[in-house]
């Protein structure tokens, strides 16, 4: 059994802590005797879905995001789209999340097309608009996800996708409708970094199971000692609540 991860554009899209997600997946696989390999895919590298059972794409600054968008659509796009329809597990964070949508409209009005595998679109309301920055807690399944968001764009989810979770504290997709992230089939998009997976071990395991199950239908992950992970999760949760309370008082 092996998790074969395609890491899209690690050299262009590696803002603040994306590496933590890869480190977490590797640790949690290897601790259970599951093999783990990472394929770094840069611009012009072909996407051969038969080589991977999971895809990760992180965040980037605007400058890098433009370089990536072109390659994503024209070089890898068709292969990724059909892999998604076949059930490929994808985690897309922040800038990568925006790129999975139909488009990103910049503060200046220019529209940057995205891959369109998620029925979402993102618009930056203008240079004077407030950036959404801070700790986030969302409800996810029976549990919570914690992380940090830092984005100027507001994302809206269409009928072809569902929000990943409901905002408990923080801004989420657009600061209005209470949704955070988006899901379509096994594609998970979110603004949460922090890094996301290390302190949300349940979510990390959920993704690992999804990625492995097409080839290993009976996959069961044995539990790990997640004391440190769980305490980091709770620490982040209580800080996020404390800060949002302070915000209300102000």
């Amino acid at each position, binding site marked *: 059994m092996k998790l074969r991860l395609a890491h899209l554009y690690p*050299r262009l899209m*590696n*803002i*603040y*802590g*994306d*590496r*933590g997600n890869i*480190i*977490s997946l590797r*640790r949690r696989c290897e601790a259970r005797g599951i093999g783990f390999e990472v394929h770094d895919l840069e611009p012009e590298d072909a996407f051969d879905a038969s080589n991977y059972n999971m895809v990760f794409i992180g965040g980037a*600054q*605007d*400058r*890098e995001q433009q*370089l990536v968008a072109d390659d994503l659509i024209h070089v890898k796009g068709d292969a990724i789209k059909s892999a998604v329809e076949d059930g490929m597990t994808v985690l897309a964070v922040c800038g990568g999340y925006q790129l999975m949508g139909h488009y990103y409209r910049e503060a200046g009005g220019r529209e940057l097309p995205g891959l369109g595998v998620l029925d979402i679109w993102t618009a930056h309301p203008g240079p004077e608009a407030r*950036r959404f*920055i*801070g*700790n986030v807690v969302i409800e996810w399944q029976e549990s919570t996800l914690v992380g*940090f968001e*830092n984005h*100027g764009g507001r994302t809206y989810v269409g009928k072809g996708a569902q929000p990943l979770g409901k905002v408990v504290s923080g801004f989420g997709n657009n600061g209005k409708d209470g949704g955070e992230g988006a899901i379509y089939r096994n594609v998970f998009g979110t603004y949460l*970094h*922090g*890094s996301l997976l*290390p*302190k949300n071990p349940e979510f990390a395991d959920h993704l690992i199971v999804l990625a492995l199950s097409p080839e290993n239908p009976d996959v069961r992950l044995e539990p790990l*000692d997640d*004391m*440190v*992970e769980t*305490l*980091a999760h*709770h*620490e*982040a949760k209580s*800080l996020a609540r404390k800060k949002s309370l302070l915000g209300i008082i102000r």
Partner: protein
Amino acid sequence: MRRELATIAAKAAGQVSRNLGIGGGTALPGLIAEGIDPGIVTDMSSCLGQGSVLVTGTNGKTTTARLIRRVVNKVGLVAIGNREGSNMMRGIAASLAEAAGWQGTIPDAERSMGVFEVDEATLPKVAQVIGPRVVLFTNLFRDQLDRYGEVETVARLWQDAVAAWDNRSTIVLNADDPSVASLQGTASGKLLTFGIDDASLTVGEVEHASDARWCRTCGAELAYSTVFYGHLGHWSCSKCQNRRRAPDVSCSRLVLDRDDMQMTVTTPSGQFEVSLSLTGVYNSYNALAATATAIALGIAPDVTMEGLSGFTAAFGRQERMLIADREVEVILAKNPAGLNQVLNTLVRAGEPMDVIFLLNDDIADGRDISWIWDVDFEMLQGRLRSLSVSGHRSWDMALRLKYAGLSDSPGVNSDTKTALRHALAGTAPGGRLYVIPTYTAMLEARNVLGKWAGKGAFWEGDGG
């Protein structure tokens, strides 16, 4: 009259807040001074007979500004500076008010020079108000993305600011940092550059936490023959002619020891040997930056070297104190490039270490702590005697260290005082404890450690 009132009010506020022990007494007096007299920075800085130097960049501002002040004092001038961390306009206003007498004028103004560290994003405004003689750019790394937005934003701010300046300001640039060196094309005034030539200190490849991978002229990927720290090194564009130019002030030989370093510094007026009681590649950049700035100010290099050699570390930058037979060294680290440099420097010393990391997420630290996942803590494997963590985000730090393969359960105590007490007790007598905090955690740790310094083994009594 307005000036006098502003100065008096600011000085009084500073005194009160220092007596009450709230902060270093700089933000409030600065705000008051600017509130009463909005022109205070412009007017008072223009009275400084020797003009002003501004020091900006992600890492090294405080140490470099202190080095420059020392050199300036060495030639018999009076250096006026802002306190570390108070590097916005109000911090500069406060320092000018503090330097002034009660009547609102600076004594000995003719021989006085302002040497201010300035926040990266505030630089354009401060430069506009002050009209500096010299502006030094140290480096540009990802830092506090929650506050500055993106690294690119700061790079563009600088470009626009430098383009708008007249040719009266000399600009001092780090030739080894492509983001900083590219300001060369924009500047209309005099220019001086510094960098490291000694290629024996290469770390091999560009670190994970690097930012400037792309040519600012054509967008192609940069190639490196030598990397010293983050994305600082000998770079050239893979497509166009953009490349590192030979610096005016360079280090042709650097020998790093545990607590000090020896440098051979080449300047336009000759070669000099200098020994500093600081260590690490990042500190050799600070020394080179200070030397280049001194040259820009017309100070002779031999006087500069004399100033550098007597410098002692302070305020959490390799600051050492003795506590109950243990040496404690506090080393501030607030972003991935900076912390990687600190770890590299510790690992170079080669001995098994006792280390405590303190991670806070206050506004001054940067609220987003995901940067710790960009730090190569893995290099500490097999090098530690004891390891503990504290701070508001201690469990995040513990998790990072666990995943770096350092300890499945490092000692965690979110109370800094208790954590430091345990860490000291766990350090052998005669040994050294490295305390590595973020900014606000550093203030807290220094406060606690300062009270213990020179006392006995307080943890064996009723607790410190």
